[in-house]
């Protein structure tokens, strides 16, 4: 079964073709360059670029795979969460293709896409497993017991981990998106400052990153000439430390021996390093999507759509963009 998926929930336009869970093509046309100068995503510009590029990207995927659109069995797109104006473009093009070729259409929850990105490298990965979903909008420890349901074990109480990276990057005068910028800067520095790691009580799997943001702000105010690299390394250390400790504690407590990572922050190298260390210590297996499958991409959407398609769970053409889609709906 060949699925073509479109992802346009935020700042990347992405198109992928996946056959029975196997990625044939995954294209991402990042708009980050455009957004960089504004220090964040400009929805108006994002939608515009999506619209300009999305169908050419579909054609490019067809060329790359040497397939014709008629050979595609199902068309999928991200239906949320994300920016309405951006989501609608991928959704509408996918629906248009489905109508034109008389194929089913499947709408996918972007967050499940991140979770299922793990199946690309590890098709053998089976429920139950713990997921640490860490992205711009999410920081959650999830227990996935069934293919289409997750239970929340812990979550951020304020800012998401990615949001923390982004906002701290801004405070440090670094670029957008903050994650890679801080990671890069951190390489040139050392984590010599200790920023807060709140909620450390045992059995508490929630996170809090808003204090970190203000800590950094005032630290910078108090220490005007401080090395940006050292602050970046220290902030990163604080975030990663919280994430890893709590996630492993949760897994151990729930007696689950697999942890999958998902979302843009899962691309963070320090996070991977620390997780692998901890995994071997605690006898838990960890799964990371390929780096390019951590940040937004369409292959993960296609793979998630495949899970629905196998069960013939198609979506109606009335599927609308849902900007704040929760984890309740696959």
């Amino acid at each position, binding site marked *: 079964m060949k699925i073509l998926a479109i992802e346009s929930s935020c700042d990347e336009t992405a198109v992928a073709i996946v056959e029975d869970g196997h990625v044939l093509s995954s294209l991402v046309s990042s708009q980050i360059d455009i957004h960089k100068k*504004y*220090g964040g995503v*400009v929805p*108006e*510009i994002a*939608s*515009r670029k999506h*619209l*300009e590029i*999305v*169908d*050419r990207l*579909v*054609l490019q995927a067809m060329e790359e795979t040497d397939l*014709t*659109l*008629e050979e595609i069995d199902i068309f999928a797109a991200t239906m949320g969460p994300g920016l*309405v*104006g951006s989501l*609608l*473009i*991928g*959704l*509408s*093009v*996918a*629906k*248009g*293709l*489905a*109508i*034109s*070729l*008389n194929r089913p259409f499947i709408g996918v929850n972007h967050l499940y896409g991140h979770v299922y990105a793990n199946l690309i490298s590890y098709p053998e990965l089976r429920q139950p497993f713990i997921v640490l979903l860490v992205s711009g909008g999410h920081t959650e420890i999830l227990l996935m017991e069934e293919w289409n349901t997750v239970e929340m074990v812990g979550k951020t109480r304020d800012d998401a981990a990615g949001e923390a990276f982004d906002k701290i990057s*801004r405070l440090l005068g670094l670029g957008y998106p903050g994650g890679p910028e801080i990671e890069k800067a951190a390489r040139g520095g050392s984590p010599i400052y200790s920023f807060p790691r709140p909620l450390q009580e045992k059995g508490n799997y929630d996170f809090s990153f808003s204090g970190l943001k203000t800590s950094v702000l005032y630290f910078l105010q108090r220490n005007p000439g401080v090395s940006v690299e050292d602050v970046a390394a220290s902030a990163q250390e604080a975030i990663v430390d919280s994430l890893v400790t709590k996630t492993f504690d949760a897994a151990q407590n729930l007696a689950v021996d697999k942890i999958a990572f998902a979302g843009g922050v899962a691309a963070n190298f320090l996070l991977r390093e620390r997780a692998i260390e901890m995994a071997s210590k605690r006898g838990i297996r960890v799964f990371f999507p390929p780096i390019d499958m951590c940040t937004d991409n369409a292959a993960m959407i296609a793979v998630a759509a495949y899970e629905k398609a196998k069960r013939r769970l198609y979506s*109606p*053409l*009335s*599927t*609308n*963009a849902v900007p704040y889609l929760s984890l309740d709906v696959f």
Partner: protein
Amino acid sequence: MKYLIVDTSSRTLLLSASNGKGDVSLSLKDLDRHGAILAVVIKQFLDLLEISPADLDFLGAGVGPGSLTGLRVGLSTIKGISLPYNIPVVPFNSFDPLAEGICFDDFVICRKGREGHFYWRTYLKKRPGETLFSSIVEIKEKLDKSIVVCSERNEELVDFQDYRTFLLEPSPVLMRKIVLEAFRSGKILSGLDLEPVYLQKSVAEINWDGRNSRKT
């Protein structure tokens, strides 16, 4: 002639389709969910008319001016339908079908954009001028009091009480008429090149830049 034409630039979704024998003209007013509705009604009417998309001679798409979100839904759906078979697309200014239903000599069509701003286009002796986006103050400066101000919504005409006004009824039949004419005179392009009329562009950027400087 088999075709499918949509305009999603306003709160009234217009659709017209034909299978070469029969045809459908649809207007959906104030349903507010183009994103959820457009694909559904397109599919319903292609099925009802027993049109297989591969057989479409052309597609038509209103490119605005108007709601960018609405336009994006319309244009990206049309792009999706066009792509597999490379069906040519007739783009049209969304004001033209409206103008077609007006029998005054000189008039202007106005459609609300962001607060206090309108998209507008004058038609003198039925000949269209440039499509513009301006604040209401600016528009009134430029408009002669003898012109008839036309709009689809009564709320919008209220801003022009000092002019003769006329309430428009968007019509899928007039839309079809102007698109058929455009198709016959060869005004087609590839779905890949379809894009909305961007008039708010500069405003959006100014707007952003303003806020941006405020924040940092």
